[in-house]
């Protein structure tokens, strides 16, 4: 058996630039996403400072519109989704008992595309101003803007979006093809299920956005006329395309949070998930319905009562599977032994907060009443309740929960609790009053409001809350810094976990499981624990392990896209051509260089097992 042993061990920065290991890519996603999360958060605090008092003049006009656009765009595309991808990368293959994702190379491409897209978008701040047409970039506001802000928006997100699409396909294939023996679909942990459905949504929602961005780019760069009424275009095309993507996007974001919460609540209640199959069904149903409701973002657009009514009822229907989930979580805790670790605190905070966001969602689904809510602060309050109170609390929970697996250290629990309470109280202070602001007549996306409209008090409270949320985030940063400077301090299973990711030693070996485990039930590790084994039963003898080689090509390919992005933004066809040329060259190199990876020999694996490293 001749093998090509062309494996080079790289170290330091080069290792991170060339890695195709899903665990490292997960960390990269988490770091980059966390960085953008801080930027987006800073933008939010600046906006709240401007709105703290009426008639204030700190960030006005266009600058404020840039802040609001970049806040939304950054948080959704560059913070929330990458952090989700970080957890999916780090955890899903482990939960499946797989060696890696299906396409390690494509995985790296996905990350670097996202990274360079995000950097490109944020460079707009220094190169003539950020985009100012809102994260929705409605035409014609986005097409008539003369500066390059929207060009950065289109190109940056197009590049990042391509990476996301690649990631979505990757996880679908991983979950379908690479489950360990015995890991049937109905034994998969809920987080993996959520990742599966989310990846499906990405696969079918992002192409619409890709086209939308192409149309917008053609309109701006090549003077196309899709959205120009004077030339026969129609502005509603953009709105439809954007929301055909945009609503599934909301579920792309929230489903993984549902998954995390399901894992955390089950683990820290020491009980299996109540109504597992109903939970799975609800997840799939929410994903499906996610494609059927986008018009509820467009009730005031004038699509007529028939369309509005149909989409209203479809929207309400989503409340049913979501409600099933809420009750199943509560009954998972029922009769359990609840331990309030920080991860669990975030999960416990998630449930009522998300319910509040959910009920305002049902209220918004009533078109005739939505004419009052739409584009007011009520909507702002609603979607922050679901996205911050839902998704972000879920991601914090996941961070505290999986931190030991990803970084081999436990985060400090005392600081963690400070983090939770500051963030949680700050969150409600910020967003609860905003429901009232909206109902009292304050439109969203305004940079100021006049005094004497009874809007002052609630706005002030809201800003105080935002500062508290910022403080909570700073506590998290301190916690991370402290943990980073401490030694490895964790056992392999600090939370008495139930799923496969806790069945490996710390740090996780590069090949994950030395021997692919045999899965004998839902909560695979728990099954073994109660059977008295404490460890997974292997499904195969110790043998050679095939591993993919690292490669710098994903980085270079994405760099090429980044360069071509600049070319298109400044209509410099040489630069655009050079960038795309670089992309083609890397693709060409990838296809002509044979790379069959390398093998870890049986003896090495055996030595690892003996030494407790595998």
């Amino acid at each position, binding site marked *: 058996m001749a093998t090509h042993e062309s494996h080079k061990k790289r170290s330091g920065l080069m290792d991170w630039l060339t890695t195709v290991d899903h665990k490292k890519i997960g960390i990269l996603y988490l770091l980059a996403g966390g960085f953008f999360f801080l930027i987006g958060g800073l933008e939010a605090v600046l906006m709240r400072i401007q709105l703290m008092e009426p008639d204030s003049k700190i960030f006005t006009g266009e600058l404020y519109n840039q802040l609001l656009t970049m806040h939304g765009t950054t948080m959704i595309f560059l913070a929330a989704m990458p952090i989700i991808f970080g957890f999916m990368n780090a955890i899903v293959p482990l939960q499946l008992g797989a060696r890696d994702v299906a396409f390690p190379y494509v995985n790296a491409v996905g990350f670097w595309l996202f990274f360079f897209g995000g950097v490109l978008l944020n460079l707009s701040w220094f190169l003539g101003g950020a985009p100012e047409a809102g994260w929705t970039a409605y035409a014609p506001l986005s097409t008539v803007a003369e500066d390059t802000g929207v060009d950065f928006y289109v190109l940056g997100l197009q590049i990042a979006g391509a990476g996301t699409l690649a990631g979505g396909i990757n996880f679908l294939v991983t979950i379908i093809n690479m489950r360990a023996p015995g890991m049937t679909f109905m034994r998969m942990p809920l987080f993996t299920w959520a990742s599966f459905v989310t990846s499906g949504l990405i696969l079918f929602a992002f192409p619409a956005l890709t086209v939308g961005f192409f149309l917008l780019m053609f309109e701006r760069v090549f003077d196309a006329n899709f959205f120009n009424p004077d030339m026969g275009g*129609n502005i509603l095309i953009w709105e439809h395309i954007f929301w055909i993507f945009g609503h599934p996007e909301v579920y792309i974001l929230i489903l993984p949070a549902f998954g995390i919460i399901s894992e955390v609540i089950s683990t820290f209640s020491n009980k299996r998930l109540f109504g597992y199959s109903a939970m799975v069904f609800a997840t799939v149903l929410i994903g499906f319905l996610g494609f059927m409701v986008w018009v509820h973002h467009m009730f*005031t657009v004038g699509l007529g009562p028939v369309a509005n009514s149909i989409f209203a009822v479809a929207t309400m229907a989503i409340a049913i599977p979501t409600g099933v989930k809420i009750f199943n979580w509560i009954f998972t805790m029922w009769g359990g032994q609840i331990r309030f670790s920080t991860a669990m605190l975030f999960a416990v905070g998630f449930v009522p907060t998300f319910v509040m966001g959910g009920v305002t969602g049902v209220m918004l689904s009533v078109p005739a009443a939505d004419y*009052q809510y*739409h584009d007011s602060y009520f909507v702002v309050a609603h979607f922050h309740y679901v996205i911050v109170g839902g998704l972000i609390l879920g991601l914090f929970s996941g961070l505290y929960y999986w931190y030991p697996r990803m970084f081999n250290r436990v985060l400090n629990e005392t600081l963690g609790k400070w983090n939770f309470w500051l963030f949680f109280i700050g969150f409600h202070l910020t967003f609860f009053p905003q429901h009232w602001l909206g109902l009292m007549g304050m439109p969203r996306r305004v940079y100021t409001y006049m005094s004497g409209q009874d809007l002052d008090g609630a706005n002030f409270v809201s800003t105080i809350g935002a500062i508290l949320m910022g403080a909570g985030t700073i506590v998290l940063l301190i916690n991370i810094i402290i943990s980073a400077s401490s030694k490895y301090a964790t056992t392999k299973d600090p939370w008495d976990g139930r799923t496969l990711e806790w069945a490996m030693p710390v740090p996780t070996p590069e090949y994950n499981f030395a021997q692919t485990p045999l899965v004998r039930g839902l909560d695979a590790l728990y099954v073994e624990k109660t059977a008295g084994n404490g460890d997974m039963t292997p499904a195969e003898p110790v043998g050679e392990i095939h591993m993919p080689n690292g490669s710098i090509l994903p980085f270079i390919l994405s760099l090429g896209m980044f360069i071509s992005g600049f070319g298109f933004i400044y209509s410099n066809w040489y630069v655009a051509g050079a960038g795309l040329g670089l992309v083609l060259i890397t693709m060409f190199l990838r296809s002509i260089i044979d790379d069959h990876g390398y093998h870890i020999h049986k003896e090495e694996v055996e030595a690892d097992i003996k030494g407790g490293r595998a």
Partner: protein
Amino acid sequence: MKKWLQKGRFLSLFAMLALLLMGCGDPTLSTLIPQGEVADKQFQLMLISISIMILVLVVVFVLYAFVLLKFRKKKGDNSTPKQVEGNHMLELLWTVIPILLLIILAVPTVMRTFEFSADAKPASKNELSIKVTGHQYWWEFEYPKEELITSQELVLPADTKVHVELSSADVIHSFWIPSLAGKTDTNPGDKNKNYMWFDTGSKTDVVYKGKCAELCGASHALMDFKVRVVSKEDYKNWVAGYKAADDKSSANADGQQVFEKNCLSCHAVGQNGGNTGPSLTGFGDKDRVAGILEHDKENLKKWIKDPQEVKPGNNMPKVNLSDEEIDAVSDYLLGLKLK
């Protein structure tokens, strides 16, 4: 009150909620203090949905609090909880009950959605019809039957059903008078014209606040307008006065000259002038300078001197005028009154 509200236990809850909510906000701006039929019905819908949702919240929160208190791990208790797979009865329960609640909500939802659009066609004879055009960042109001065009201030008779045709001269805006009716977008292009209707309510001599609700550029926040509801009598007089008004209605001859030389190409007064900027007929009677500033000479001068300072990104050019000219033209404009 509405028929389908009169029955049931919800009534008392409703009354309480309504009282609680109606204390909120500026009575000329808040959706919670509805002044016309449409806003009132929309407020009813809010109340129905909030009531159902509060019911849900209470059930979930009570259950949740109980679970969190009861099942926390006690020190020294290391027993393993029973691993429950699920319970079909319970799961059925929390699937069916929400469905029922949603059906209760869906019926008035669909009904009202059709009601608010059914009448949105151009008005019959005894009802008022207006055309609204959004501009960056001001509003143009045309009264087709009365054959007059105003800007920024919509004068309407009380107790009247108003039909609105909405369009935009540039980007998407959204026309919103929270106390009278929910918003509808103004879309550019003839294909996507919108129609809505609202009722002006019974109060007279009130000024309701109107807002642009769709991000439309740098001064989106400042794109306010006013809706002045007057008695039917006063409305007739206003129409007559407006139609009779001309550019001679102000006594300041110097200012008039400056105005005719520098402003008339964009702004109309009476029958004269262009229409790229807001009409200034009867400017002296208006409520705000540029839709936002207090209506006095100081502010008017400030606005003419540097429009970008007041409303960033707006289309009014900075006209090269001396301080004296600005002073004169301000006096002239403030002197423009309706007869």
